[in-house]
């Protein structure tokens, strides 16, 4: 229903959109993601017909936006802006009623109370109807504006950062409502800053950066696309949210450059803490063997670390032992996470590698048997880093 073919657009001599093609069909909720200044708002404004493309076509239901009158276009697509400043203290109901404007002739002053109230009911704003809209909170006002968009009875919704000013509960509420509307057969295209929210609620993501579409497709694929990390100029890790089951992205902190490879043996609370601390400090970290599903194993998978996993409740097979030993031998230092049943297996056989035993207080027990060579025991992440730093710089 919303379609762009090869759209170029420049503002004040600067190219903002460069060959953008996309389509959003009914029943689809598509998120437009990308860094600040990528051209997201410009793209939305081009769809609304506020900006005319230099080349290419923008069509709504097959008709070019530039050929449609403002009221014909607004019957097809309703816009929910990021934030609305309404002067003059109109009531919420009056603002929603303005959504009926494209359906009315100039001298038709009837209220369309039915449509207006129905839209307010859907957005749970009926109770606010006599309140002055400038006295509402950001979340309430955004729902009122959404009600106004519904009163327009459009086939498509354009949303520009609909959740940017909202509390977490209202973010979810607004996006769930949009999802419901999409399931009823509307098309929705939303610029969304929050990648996790976009991945959670949208059917597809479209990554815009420097005016070009860099990646598109299902959320998991776009989030994991190297173009995304590139666009945001940061390292990222994609994981699954344990509660919603949807994809989640984490921008990884800048890591200092440290040379040195550390192999961590064992998982559990100590293992995961050791992996995290060493990775953040800038070391190349390898892990294993650890049981599948161990917290350290999932962290290593999210970070893309070389890891040897063993099926849960099983002893490592020979190949797994060998693989883990190879990683351990390649490392400059071995960190043994305490209290792991698999730890000793590798530690005992990699005697030539200096080691640090990490136990971050998850238990009073401390195993010392089987340690060979020079072993230091550390009890905090800071101590671990100091020990590893000292060992490697020697």
């Amino acid at each position, binding site marked *: 229903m919303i379609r762009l073919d090869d759209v170029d657009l420049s503002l004040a001599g600067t190219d903002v959109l460069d060959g953008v093609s996309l389509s959003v069909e009914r029943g689809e909720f598509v998120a437009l993601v990308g860094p600040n200044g990528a051209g997201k708002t410009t793209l939305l404004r081009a769809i609304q017909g506020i900006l005319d493309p230099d080349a290419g076509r923008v069509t709504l239901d097959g008709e070019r936006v530039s050929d449609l009158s403002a009221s014909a276009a607004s019957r097809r697509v309703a816009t929910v802006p990021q934030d609305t400043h309404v*002067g003059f203290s109109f009531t919420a109901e009056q603002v929603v009623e303005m959504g009926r404007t494209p359906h009315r002739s100039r001298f038709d002053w009837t209220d369309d109370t039915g449509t207006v109230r129905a839209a307010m009911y859907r957005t749970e704003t009926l109770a606010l109807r006599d309140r002055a809209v400038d006295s509402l909170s950001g979340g309430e006002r955004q729902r009122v504006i959404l009600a106004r968009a519904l009163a*327009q009875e459009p086939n498509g919704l354009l949303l520009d950062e609909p959740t940017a000013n909202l509390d977490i509960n209202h973010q979810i509420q607004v996006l769930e409502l949009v999802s419901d509307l999409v399931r009823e057969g509307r098309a929705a295209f939303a610029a969304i800053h929050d990648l996790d929210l976009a991945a959670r609620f949208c059917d597809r993501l479209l990554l815009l950066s420097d005016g070009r579409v860099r990646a598109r497709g299902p959320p998991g694929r776009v989030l994991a696309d190297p173009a995304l990390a590139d666009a945001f100029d940061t390292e990222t890790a994609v994981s699954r949210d344990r509660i919603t089951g949807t994809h989640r992205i984490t921008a990884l902190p800048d890591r200092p450059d440290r040379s040195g490879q550390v192999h961590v043996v064992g998982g559990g609370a100590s293992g995961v803490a050791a992996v995290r601390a060493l990775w953040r400090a800038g070391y190349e970290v390898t892990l294993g063997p650890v049981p599948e599903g161990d917290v350290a194993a999932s962290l290593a998978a999210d970070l893309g670390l070389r890891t040897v996993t063993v099926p849960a409740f099983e002893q490592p097979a020979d190949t797994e032992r060998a693989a883990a030993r190879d990683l351990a031998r390649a490392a400059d230092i071995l960190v043994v996470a305490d209290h792991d049943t698999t730890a000793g297996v590798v530690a005992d056989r990699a005697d030539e590698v200096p080691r640090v035993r990490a136990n971050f207080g998850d238990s009073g027990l401390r195993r010392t048997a089987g340690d060979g060579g020079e072993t230091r025991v550390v009890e905090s992440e800071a101590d671990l880093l100091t020990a590893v730093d000292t060992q490697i710089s020697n």
Partner: protein
Amino acid sequence: MRILLRTALWSAALVAALVGTVLASTTVGSVNLDIVTVTRAVLNTLAYPSGVGLESGQFGFGERVVQVPVPDVSYTRPFGFEVAETDQIIVQRIRLPRIALGAVVGFALGAAGAVMQGFFRNPMADPSIIGVSSGAAVGAVATIAFPVAMPFGLQTAAFLGAVLSAFGVYFIATEDGRTPVATLLLAGLAVQTFLGAVVSFLLLRSGEGLEEAILWLMGTLRYSNWGDVEATLPLAVLFFVVLLAYARDLNVMLLGEEEALALGIEVERTKRLLLVASALITAAAVAVAGIIGFVGLIIPHIMRLIVGPDHRILVPTSALAGATFLVLADTVARAGTAMPVGIVTAAVGAPFFLFLLRRREVHAL
């Protein structure tokens, strides 16, 4: 239908108030007339156009004389009450033209003020903001300083000055077919300042006309006659209807121009139309009454407090309240020391506005 009903009820109430004010005002003057006599005399004055005929007028272009059919409107006076002839003359010839003109001018300024405040989303906007008043002032003062013999010379010059100035501001502020409201505001301010300098210069050169010029600048209804009313009323009604037709669009424009576009408003066309209609309705009022301040500023604020921000009800009620207010103010001006009505409106309006401001009833939009 609620808005239609509310508008009708409020308008009816304000029309009643206006009629009462007009009648009461007509009793005031150097000769005391009672309200019954006045009511009868006013009703006797009422006339409606009952037929349009054609008569031939002659126009000469050099040696050629052209016969042109000219519409000839005949009026019917439905009432014929028994009123002493002197009383009828006092009411019909002396008091009523001035009161009627006051009502028309107040009506025009009230409507234009409500629209301009909404248009500029600025509580300090009034009809003069796009340079209309300063343009009219240049036209009027120039005619006083350098008299030319022509009927309605001053009014015509003032009207033309107002229209030219408003369109000048509009064209200065327009680029690529778009007229940003902020640019319009600043261009209006600059043009007003410039034209103010022109007026000051003309005042210095106006010699014996100085007093007349100053009276005009202060706004006065003293020189009014039925001719002014007949010229101003049709313009006021016409442009009022245009403004009312775009009242709902104006409501939507208050959300911001991009949102208005998203709601199906042809923004630039609507802005152009609102500007033209406001400029012309204001020009018509200023041309016959001089620069009367505060009606177009304060009346819409008061009405917005009472009826709310919806322009479909705000524009007509502001117009009617403006009419009533100006008739009242001019009654005070007449009864007092015959000072210009502009002094009364400002002297009453400014403190009242400050009162509202302190009560926080008037705030930024």
